[in-house]
């Protein structure tokens, strides 16, 4: 027979042909007999008698179709039979399918996330050659790069085919478009930026030299989403004008949607159009590069390091760079989430094992119920191999259905993860359940089917089904029960690990929420409403008017503005000097000649209005800014406690003089007050030292201000009034409004997301483990019904019986928990980077987990145990 014959349609036709043919044969034989004078009824009967068994004839004839045909035939039969068997026990099938589907779904979803985020290359050609470069300080800390250092790198290194610098500012700013203002992320980039990424515009062109010089033509390249949202399409965006800062730019090109670097960036402009930054100390830029073909990462690292160390020798104190290093761009983007995601993948694997153990228990219980059926089939001549195959096929049908449901669940779950803003995963837009994930799931399902079927078959084989016909329930084959015990112990120990992991992350999260952020997290709205006003005085007037009007809104109790709002908008940071006396012109030489003991590094925030009052940052010493600190007066400053402690340990900061190099204003500051520390870099990080300047005195600052608005009622009510005020004041300004509790909550979104998933896993594991303990104790109790009956008849007390049954379950639980604790101590060590304020071997956490599981185990064992004590010994003995 040819391969074609095995197509389902062809096959059923062949089978139909054969049975038609045999029917015709019978009819003709009968007709001949009638012709010879037999009665029609006798004729039919004799013809059949002579013919033999038509079904068997058909089957033997079909056997001629070959071995492969028979296998397929039998497989189809097995699958049909398996489906009938499962339909006959819908509760069993449902429980197995649902538990397996959940664990397969969880594993598939997390695999998809890990694969898309961590494992897949970035969506650029030969993206593994794209690297990010960092300056290293003398202490080895990674820093951003200054423009002069970048130019030296570009000239002196030989490892890169392209190297580019871009602004390191990650915030959004107002972009005016013909369709109204919008907040967008705009990044000025150097000439080779697109060559480093290897992206080409889908419409239009990239920048030309005329656009890449100071004072040249202003041009911009925009992202696909920006072009669609603002201009209704890629083509219609070309040639349109947008305004950013004080300048107008013509859109010359639209990038494809895959070009998403820096993440979320929508507008790219030539950095060469802006005044060059000539300070070798003026860091804050990001540098990326593409490795030349044939250059390894290590070789490039050595090259950059050698060049940078030579630069240190050459420039000495003029640069803060002692060395340099580079990392793969993907590593840089996803490195921080990798431990979290791998931990979740491990957790889902554990859940899968627990689900498998559960299915295994249910499957063997089911087979025990069916063992007389299996025995009859054996007695009627079914080959034992065929029975084993039947069991494997039944498991495969179960696992197959579960895998289909699991993939569906994974697709839904992944969609939720991508949509959830709180998950804050890098490359979230790229996450899909793709064919690789499907192949992974298929392989997983095949493995699970074979394991489940194989182990179940091994168990019933161990039971010796042939004996089952004669055996009653009191004979228990030891091997099956032993395997069952191992399953329960494994289930419990894996559950302990999952619970410990969940408990550790839970405690970390609570610790995180207990951190005092140093500012009020309730009833504060953060408003970004940055105008495109070039004139400093006009900008100050705009902010003053805005602050006054917002202050007048009913329900507003304080309004502040600042170049940073804790956690919401990170302020810039920079170096400062400790001076002896105020000066109007701190010289450049001072930065080179000052000893390290009189230099420092801190966050720099320029504030206006009631900034500290609005955010509830407490004043510790001295005073806040006041109206008398006028525009023309000697600049004053307020510092955080940590700033005071690192600059003047043990001394009084009030009246001290500081020079900060963050704007082009050469005047020094006099400290007038000390305020409390704030956790600006997130709750888990220590509060950075912070320096506050007064906006009316530092008008040359070029960072946009954010408003912090303290309200007496619901901030959401006030936000809509503020939007209206901004619109009346400057219709061209886009408003972004957030409440600070939301901002703080989303800053721990990563942790919350991880915690949510692992708690869900641990919960599911706990339920499955409970079922496991319950299952084995009731099973053992049933197996020992007769023994219990005899014991009761001989005078055993209920408590003795209870002890007998429950004791067995508890012994297994204790073994499982003990192994689990040992495993946890080893495995949770890998979570060191994920916990906060708690040790990975925290005895209280492990103790609580142990206690919880013990209670659950006792309850799960007690219920069937209690049932065993209710047995009437007479009933039991009579029935057997």
């Amino acid at each position, binding site marked *: 027979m040819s391969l074609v014959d095995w197509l389902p349609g062809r096959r059923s036709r062949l089978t139909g042909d054969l049975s038609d043919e045999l029917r*015709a044969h019978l009819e003709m034989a009968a007709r001949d007999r009638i012709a010879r004078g037999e009665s029609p009824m006798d004729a039919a009967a004799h013809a059949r008698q002579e013919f*033999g068994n038509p079904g*068997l004839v058909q089957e*033997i004839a079909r056997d001629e179709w070959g071995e492969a045909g028979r296998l397929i035939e039998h497989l189809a039969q097995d699958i049909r039979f398996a489906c009938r068997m499962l339909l006959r026990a819908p509760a069993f099938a449902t429980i197995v399918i649902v538990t397996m589907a959940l664990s397969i779904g969880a594993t598939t979803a997390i695999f998809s996330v890990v694969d898309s985020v961590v494992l897949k290359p970035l969506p650029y050609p030969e993206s593994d050659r794209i690297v990010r470069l960092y300056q290293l300080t003398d202490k080895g800390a990674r820093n951003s790069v200054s423009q002069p250092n970048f130019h030296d790198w570009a000239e002196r290194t030989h490892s890169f085919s392209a190297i580019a610098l871009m602004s390191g500012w990650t915030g959004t700013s107002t972009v005016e478009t013909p369709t109204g203002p919008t907040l967008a992320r705009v990044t000025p980039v150097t000439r080779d930026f697109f060559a480093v990424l290897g992206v080409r515009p889908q419409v239009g062109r990239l920048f030309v030299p005329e656009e890449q010089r100071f004072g040249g033509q202003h041009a911009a390249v925009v992202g696909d989403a920006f072009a669609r949202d603002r201009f209704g399409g890629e083509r219609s965006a070309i040639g349109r004008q947008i305004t950013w800062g004080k300048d107008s730019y013509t859109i010359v090109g639209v990038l494809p949607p895959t070009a998403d670097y820096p993440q979320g960036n929508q507008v790219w402009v030539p950095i060469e159009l802006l005044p060059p930054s000539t300070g070798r100390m003026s860091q804050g830029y990001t540098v990326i590069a593409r490795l030349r073909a044939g250059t390894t990462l290590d070789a490039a690292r050595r090259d950059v390091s050698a060049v940078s160390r030579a630069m240190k020798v050459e420039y000495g104190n003029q640069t803060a760079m002692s060395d340099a290093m580079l990392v793969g761009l993907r590593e840089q983007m996803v490195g921080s989430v990798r431990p979290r995601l791998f931990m979740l993948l491990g957790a889902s694997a554990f859940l899968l094992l627990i689900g498998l153990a559960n299915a295994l228990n249910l499957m063997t219980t089911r087979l025990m119920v069916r063992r007389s059926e299996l025995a009859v089939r054996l007695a009627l001549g079914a080959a034992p191999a065929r029975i084993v195959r039947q069991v494997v096929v039944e498991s495969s049908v179960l696992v197959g259905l579960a895998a289909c449901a699991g993939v569906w669940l994974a697709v839904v779950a992944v969609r939720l993860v991508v949509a959830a803003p709180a998950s804050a995963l890098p490359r979230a837009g790229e996450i899909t359940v793709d064919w690789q994930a499907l192949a992974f799931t298929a392989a997983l399902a095949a493995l699970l089917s074979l394991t489940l079927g194989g182990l179940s078959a091994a168990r019933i084989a161990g039971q010796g089904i042939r004996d089952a016909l004669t055996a009653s329930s009191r004979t228990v084959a030891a091997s099956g029960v032993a395997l069952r015990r191992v399953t329960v112990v494994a289930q419990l120990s894996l559950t302990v690990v999952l619970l410990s992991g969940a408990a550790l992350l839970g405690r970390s999260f609570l610790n995180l929420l207990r951190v005092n952020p140093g500012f009020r997290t309730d009833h504060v709205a953060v408003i970004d409403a940055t105008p495109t006003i070039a004139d400093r005085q006009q900008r100050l007037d705009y902010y003053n008017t805005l602050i006054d009007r917002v202050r007048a809104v009913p329900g507003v109790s304080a309004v502040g503005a600042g170049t940073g709002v804790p956690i919401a908008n990170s302020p810039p940071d920079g170096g400062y000097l400790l001076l002896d006396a105020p000066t109007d012109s701190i010289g450049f030489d001072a930065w080179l000649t000052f000893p390290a003991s009189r230099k420092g590094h801190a966050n720099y925030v320029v504030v206006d209005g009631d900034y500290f009052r609005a955010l509830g940052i407490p004043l510790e010493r001295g005073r806040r800014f006041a109206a008398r600190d006028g525009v023309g007066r000697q600049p004053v400053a307020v510092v955080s406690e940590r700033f005071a402690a690192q600059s003047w340990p043990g001394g009084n900061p009030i009246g001290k003089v500081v020079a900060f190099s963050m704007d082009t204003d050469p005047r020094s500051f006099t400290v007038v007050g000390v305020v409390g520390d704030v956790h600006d870099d997130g709750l888990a990080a220590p509060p950075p030292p912070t320096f506050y300047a007064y906006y009316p005195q530092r008008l040359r600052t070029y960072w946009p201000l954010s408003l912090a608005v303290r309200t007496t009622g619901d901030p959401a009510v006030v936000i809509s009034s503020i939007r209206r005020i901004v619109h009346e004041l400057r219709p061209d300004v886009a408003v972004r409004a957030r409440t600070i509790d939301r901002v703080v909550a989303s800053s721990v979104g990563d942790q919350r997301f991880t915690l949510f998933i692992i708690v869900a896993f641990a919960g599911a594991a706990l339920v499955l483990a409970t079922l496991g303990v319950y299952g084995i104790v009731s099973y053992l109790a049933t197996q020992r019904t007769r023994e219990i009956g005899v014991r009761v008849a001989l005078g055993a007390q209920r408590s003795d019986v209870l002890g007998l049954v429950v004791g067995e379950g508890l012994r297994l639980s204790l073994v499982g928990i003990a192994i689990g604790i040992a495993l946890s101590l080893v495995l949770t060590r890998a979570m060191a980077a994920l916990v906060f304020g708690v040790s990975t071997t925290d005895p209280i956490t492990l103790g609580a987990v142990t206690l919880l599981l013990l209670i659950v185990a006792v309850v799960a064992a007690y219920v069937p145990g209690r049932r065993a004590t209710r047995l009437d010994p007479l009933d039991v003995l009579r029935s057997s």
Partner: protein
Amino acid sequence: MARKASPTSRIELLQGTLDFIILQALRWGPSHGYGLLLLIRAQSGNVLQVETGSLYPALQRLLRQRAIRAEWGVSDTERRVRIYHLTPKGRERLAAERSRWERLSEAMAGLMQPPAPEKA
């Protein structure tokens, strides 16, 4: 399958012989399965008893070997039946089997003859 005690006059067929007999019977013209059964029985003088359980598997085997082909037709009694034809390949095979069978028959006949008296 209940098996009737065969009369001693009937011979059970050797494995492989049946294929040859079917091909030989089809040499007289196309026939359906029941017709083949009757034909074989009649031509062997009721000596050869072919069971349906052997006939139909043999037909499937020959079909697979492309020694015969089958098509649906109408019988003398207006019944839709499956009719088997000898293919060129089947004829070749028949010729080969025939000569082999003749050699076997000669050999058998030789064996059956009383041994020649040995020379003293």
